[in-house]
């Protein structure tokens, strides 16, 4: 085999042939692995992994946050519910307004369902 660009010159034909023969031997020779790949893999940096103690720590942290949220939730829920009720009771609704609201709610729900169920 030979480089596509290397044009042999008449004057150094013997050298060209010698280089070609050497290149042929070089390309044909296969160096057995002899544990080379294993040595390379042994030198690779260790894969990044979260240490066991850190996982427990992160889990405990999330558990504390969850308990705090659960403890505070009734107070927040009560506040939100009272404010919403006061807002609604304070308004003067007519029957047509309620009907309009229901129609709007239905349209939004059906649109959302249609969008979710559509095929790509």
């Amino acid at each position, binding site marked *: 085999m030979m480089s596509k660009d290397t044009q042999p010159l008449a004057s150094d034909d013997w050298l060209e042939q*010698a280089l070609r*023969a*050497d290149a042929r031997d070089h390309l044909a020779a296969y*160096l057995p692995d002899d544990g080379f790949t294993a040595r390379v893999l042994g030198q690779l940096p260790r894969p990044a992994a979260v240490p066991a103690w850190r996982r427990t720590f992160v889990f405990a942290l999330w558990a504390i946050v969850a308990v705090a949220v659960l403890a505070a939730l009734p107070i927040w829920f009560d506040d939100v519910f009272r404010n919403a009720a006061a807002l609604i009771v304070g308004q003067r609704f007519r029957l047509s307004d309620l009907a309009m609201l229901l129609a709007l709610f239905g349209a939004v729900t059906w649109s959302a369902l249609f969008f979710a169920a559509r095929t790509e």
Partner: protein
Amino acid sequence: MSPPAVSDAQLIARVLVQDDRHAFGELVRRHQSTVRACLRKLTCGNAALADDLAQETFLLAYRNLKSFRQEAKFSTWLYRIAYNAFLADARKMKESTLPDNLEPEMVEDVAEPAPVARAATLKIDLERAMAVLSDEERAAIVQCYHNDLSHEEAARVLGCPVGTVKTHVFRAKQKLRARLGAWAPAE
């Protein structure tokens, strides 16, 4: 030889996405022979040094795999890393050792041996003569002849213009011709 079931590109993708060590091991297994053989040529047959540099080449390839853009063949990219590792080591060696004036022996007289023996002797002489070349000239010969790359591919590996590769090959051949003059057929 039939082409492998999984291509180099697929193995590279597995390494990049899942940090798949087995996939990288397969890449090393596929290319270790050519990379080590190329480095043996560059180091003038120093197998131990060539293997150390080959190991360094694959470790660097693993660390920099993200920067491989698949424009060139994976093997060409590896040759480039291997050549850079070789150059860095050669520079280190030059700094740490005193220059010696030992010139490789000139091939003087060649007796007329049998054709097979003649070819073997010429091969040995050629290997010795390769040691006379500069690192760049030897690398150009190794890439263009032994790795069977085009001048453009060799230029990419060696990180120099195509014209420079051609000049290195030309000068290398001039030196080899002078060194191995005794092998030239009588006019």
